[in-house]
């Protein structure tokens, strides 16, 4: 599996399809999240209206993004926070490193952050002598396994319980644990105890942000474990790494998105912890970090504004699209070879990395529309996938054979008489080949189809041919 190479999608997918652990994990994911989300939606009659409002609101924010970001900056600074603007991933890595160096940090605890994944923060910090410690249990598991997340809210959703047992046994020896735990409750307790000390020892705590609130200069995280809160409260410094489309005008506006987030993500009414953080510890506060930094990343997002893919910036990272995606269920997140996976990743990754290297991601979809149906922000994912297919087609990423095949087919499709003649020949040939069983088990050039299924044979005449025989040219008698 090539984790960070979207060009390897096909090879990755082939490997994934035979990975029994992954298949078992994906089966559980589909059986779990889909009905849970539906039940949560059914309990809230206003859910679809909320989606409408949230979409309008986010479109308004994106149209005025510069204004709200300035307001955020002003109010964050007024509350004693520091804002760092980073055009590129490298800028963001350097900004985080510079802050860590002010306290000569040895370890940094981390709450779950997709932006940290996007900028490759962990390997960068390690190379600079700072140990990143993931504290979200899923992130912790994949850090032990040395893998990237395979899902934006459940990073280790591809791991079975047995695999986690093995990882814990192997990596917890150095903490004096020698027993292989097999009960999830005991495994969680073991990780809790080990990570608790890491929180206390950390010099810096790094979290992401679900929202930045312009009116208050606050950052907001949503978690179920409470790890993000310990990460940001216990060390001397709290660094928020986030991206510029996360800004919302007011607490009320944040509230609208929150009503959609957990229901779409896990089917919960609300996540266990939503924390609004504003500036560093106040003079009379008994706890909290002494510094509050917000690193705001662009990394290609500003270029998405104003065009067709702007809609993708509405995404609130709930993961509903991948939870409902038949392709994701088959190949898992790692096959995408990218930080962002599933339908949202197949749209966002080309926006961030360019379409040339990422062509497979938007192409590997039936455009079935189930993702758009469940997207709380009404992002037209199939349309955006098609947008990237058009860009790929305009470029030189499409194989010559595919391009030629399409051109020849289209040439005929625009000439009904010739097409009809060709069709008559083709159906007769296929009929002949499948005459005994009514189907073909193999067909030259159609291995993609016949490797996994038979090809039903045609009846032997085209409809138009028979229609003209029966009714005469021109239609009904």
């Amino acid at each position, binding site marked *: 599996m090539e984790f960070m190479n979207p060009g390897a999608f096909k090879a990755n997918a082939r490997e994934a399809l035979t990975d029994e652990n992954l298949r078992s*994990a994906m089966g*559980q994911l589909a059986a779990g999240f889909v009905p849970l989300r539906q039940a949560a939606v059914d309990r809230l009659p*206003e859910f679809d209206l909320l989606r409408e409002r949230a979409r309008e609101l986010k479109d308004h924010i994106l*149209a005025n*993004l*510069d*204004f*709200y970001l300035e*307001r955020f900056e002003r109010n964050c600074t007024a*509350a004693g926070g520091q804002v760092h*603007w980073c*055009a590129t991933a490298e*800028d963001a890595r350097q900004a985080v490193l510079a802050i860590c160096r002010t306290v000569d940090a040895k370890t940094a605890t981390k709450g779950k952050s997709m932006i940290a994944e996007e900028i490759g923060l962990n390997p960068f910090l390690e190379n600079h002598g700072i140990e990143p410690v993931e504290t979200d*249990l*899923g992130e912790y598991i994949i850090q032990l396994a040395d893998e990237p997340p395979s899902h934006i809210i*459940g990073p280790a*959703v591809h*791991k079975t*319980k047995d695999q*986690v047992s093995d990882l814990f046994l192997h990596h917890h020896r150095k903490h004096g644990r020698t027993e292989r735990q097999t009960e*999830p409750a005991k495994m*969680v*307790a073991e990780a*809790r105890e080990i*990570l*608790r000390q890491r929180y*206390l020892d950390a010099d810096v705590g790094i979290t992401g942000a679900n929202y930045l609130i*312009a*009116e208050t200069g606050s950052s907001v995280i949503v978690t*179920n*474990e*409470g*790890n993000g*809160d*310990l990460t940001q409260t216990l060390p001397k410094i709290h660094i928020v790494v986030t991206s510029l489309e996360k800004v919302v*005008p*007011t607490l*009320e506006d944040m*509230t609208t998105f*929150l009503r959609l987030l957990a229901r779409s993500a896990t089917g919960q*009414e*609300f996540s*266990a*912890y*939503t*924390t*609004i*953080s*504003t*500036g560093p*510890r*106040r003079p009379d*506060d*008994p*706890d*909290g970090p002494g510094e509050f930094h917000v690193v705001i990343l*662009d990394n290609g997002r*500003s270029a998405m*504004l*104003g065009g067709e893919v702007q809609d993708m910036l509405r995404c609130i990272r709930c993961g509903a699209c991948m939870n409902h995606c038949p392709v994701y269920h088959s190949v898992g997140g790692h096959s995408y070879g990218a930080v962002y996976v599933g339908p949202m990743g197949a749209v966002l990754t080309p926006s961030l990395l360019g379409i040339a290297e990422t062509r497979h991601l938007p192409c590997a979809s039936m455009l079935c529309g189930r993702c758009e149906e469940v997207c709380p922000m009404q992002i037209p994912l199939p349309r955006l996938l098609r947008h990237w297919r058009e860009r790929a087609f305009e470029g030189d990423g499409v194989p010559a054979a595919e391009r030629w095949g399409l051109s020849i087919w289209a040439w005929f499709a625009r000439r009904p008489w010739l097409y009809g003649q060709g069709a008559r020949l083709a159906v007769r040939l296929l009929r002949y080949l499948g005459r005994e069983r009514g189907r073909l088990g193999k067909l030259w050039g159609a291995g993609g189809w016949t490797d996994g299924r038979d090809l039903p044979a045609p009846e032997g005449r085209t409809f138009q041919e028979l229609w003209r025989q029966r009714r005469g040219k021109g239609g009904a008698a």
Partner: protein
Amino acid sequence: MARRGDPGREAIFAAIRQSLGRPAHSAEARRELDDHIGKHRANLIPQRGKGDGKELVDRFRAMAEAAACTVRTVAAEAEVPGAVADYLRENNLSTRITLAPDSWLSGLDWASQPMLETRGGPARNEDEVAVTPAFAAVAETGTLVALSGPDHPTTLNFMPASHVVALRASQVVGAYEEVWQQLRKATKKGRGFAMPRAVNMITGPSRTADIALTIQLGAHGPRDLHIVLIDDQAGQE
């Protein structure tokens, strides 16, 4: 540090405006957008966030229980220490509790429960039980809201394995938006308001489903969240 004049910052704002195909907002446009912020308009409040006192308290309780909280109602605040002691005893939990240094909470008669050993201050790693107040509670999803400050160390909400919250029924509101209104009032400063460092919205105990999608409580924060609900609304209906 990034400030005005920071080339990275200017490049980002220029890129945003170029993509949006317009210059920076005019003074008038900024005023309008500031008005949008200043109005704090609610977008859409679900029906379940509305109702009268009793109805909302019942809904809060049901939603909190659905989120794996336990709730016990007491008739008066004087009964809180006893209810906390009962809860700890019934669940075989430590009777050494860390109290939020909140004047109302500390002012309750904890000495009436000799079995309880109390101390105040932020959480220490060895603390097993925290008892805190809440700023408000939201019926919509059974959510408690806590504000950080000298009277409520944030660590108390997260470090101990058990969290007990003493809540007055009159603190229960229907929707989150009502909490924001109260928050702005409570922290009013000049023409604006001063957010506490942390506003914690808490809905049930800590949980994770990161191992095989089975829900486990107490991932990093409390394993159990108990709410002692003081019925201070009797006769108000």
